[in-house]
């Protein structure tokens, strides 16, 4: 078997990075982000990055770390609300920003990984998002409707966080930390994955695997996950 296992994030990114490259980074908010790989990108110092990620982290954590070091030239995201350094760089014209509706972003990544260069969607028709895009009418059950063309996205490297992996690179995600990770795993020319646990081959029920190993080129086990919570909401126990 071709070895996919690497000792750590730094080793797993060795030889893949170059200035001006495009990186997809999994996660929704701070949930399911590739903590270790983001930190390793910061340490590697690679610059001029285009980063495709639903959000941009928070000040000092997640992708916020790459904003502090000015390694990101452009973000393609759906929502970037939680980051003051982001706001400062954007308002100062230091950072390019392309907003995509969240579902369009998810589908563009899925399309990129699936060899689909373009698809039509109703999302954003009649809004700023539709400007400059091809419009096309399709017949539907409720009459003719107008759709816009959106294109597939791929990345030079995708960085992905999964829960568990086996040595073949088969991946399983946990609860809502799945989010953008499975599609990004399919849309990287090279996909590098960090997991909390490596299990022996044959451990997974083949019906439970979320991402087949064909999509994973490099893999390592991360230690001491921080997994920060953005909005800690709780309810009160009923008095006994």
């Amino acid at each position, binding site marked *: 078997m071709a070895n996919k296992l690497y000792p750590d994030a730094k080793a797993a990114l060795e030889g893949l990075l170059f200035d001006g490259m495009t990186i997809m980074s999994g996660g929704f908010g701070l*949930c399911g982000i590739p903590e270790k790989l983001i930190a390793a990108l910061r340490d590697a110092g690679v610059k001029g990055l285009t980063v495709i990620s*639903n959000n941009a982290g928070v000040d000092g954590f997640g992708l916020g770390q790459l904003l502090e070091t000015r390694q990101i030239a452009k973000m393609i995201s759906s929502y970037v609300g939680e980051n003051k350094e982001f706001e400062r760089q954007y308002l100062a014209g230091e950072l390019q920003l392309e907003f995509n509706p969240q579902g369009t972003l998810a589908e563009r990544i899925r399309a990129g990984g699936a060899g689909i260069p373009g698809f039509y969607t109703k999302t954003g028709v009649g809004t700023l998002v539709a400007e400059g895009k091809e419009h096309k009418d399709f017949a539907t059950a409720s009459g003719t409707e107008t759709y816009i063309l959106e294109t597939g996205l791929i990345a030079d490297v995708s960085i992905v966080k999964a829960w568990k992996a086996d040595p073949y690179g088969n991946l399983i995600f946990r609860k809502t930390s*799945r989010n953008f990770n499975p599609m990004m795993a399919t849309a990287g020319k090279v996909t590098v994955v960090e997991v909390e646990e490596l299990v022996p081959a044959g451990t997974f029920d083949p019906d439970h695997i979320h991402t087949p190993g064909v999509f994973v080129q490099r893999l390592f086990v991360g230690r001491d996950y921080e997994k920060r919570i953005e909005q*800690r909401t709780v309810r009160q126990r009923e008095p006994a």
Partner: protein
Amino acid sequence: MWTRDQQAARAAKELQDGFYVNLGIGMPTLVANFIPEGVDVTLQSENGMLGMGPFPFAGEEDPDLINAGKQTITELDRTSYFSSADSFAMIRGGHIDLSILGAMEVADNGDIANWMIPGKMVKGMGGAMDLVAGVKKIIVLMEHNAKDGSAKFKTACTLPLTGKGVVDMVISELAVLARPAKGAPFRLIELAPGIDLDMLKARTEGHFEA
């Protein structure tokens, strides 16, 4: 006039047994507190979950289990998880019955603006454009007037749109306005206690049938 809770409770009356529902951030999340007896709804969270449960008890928060507002939540016996692509395929494909959202402006042709104010820092549209384009029925829960007193239900939106012609119902603290189909005009369905038609008209810019 309705309080915020009463407004949410009014919106909850639109829930039907068996509905799959997506609730936006802010006032719409309150609707979950007023689901009528005997009505079973399943809440979708667009970050990849169907069957959203309540907030966890203190100490039981799971960082891998959040909703689209990034709040810690819990799962139920019906819960399933899936990717963001599968989640928005569910939304875009018309499989969600109802979405209840906030708005800055709604026009009497059903246009909605709720994601950006030119000149201010724009945080992004998140999933709002996908929801208004894909979900079968769109209810807007909003204050009837902006802080400067201007009407939020207008003849035309002045802010950049989130969706065109997509809103089916508006519930404010003053009234319920709704239309039977996209493209039809809005009608007054219900007035809040203490509000009469003249009061409503005085505080409304957009056209509706009384």
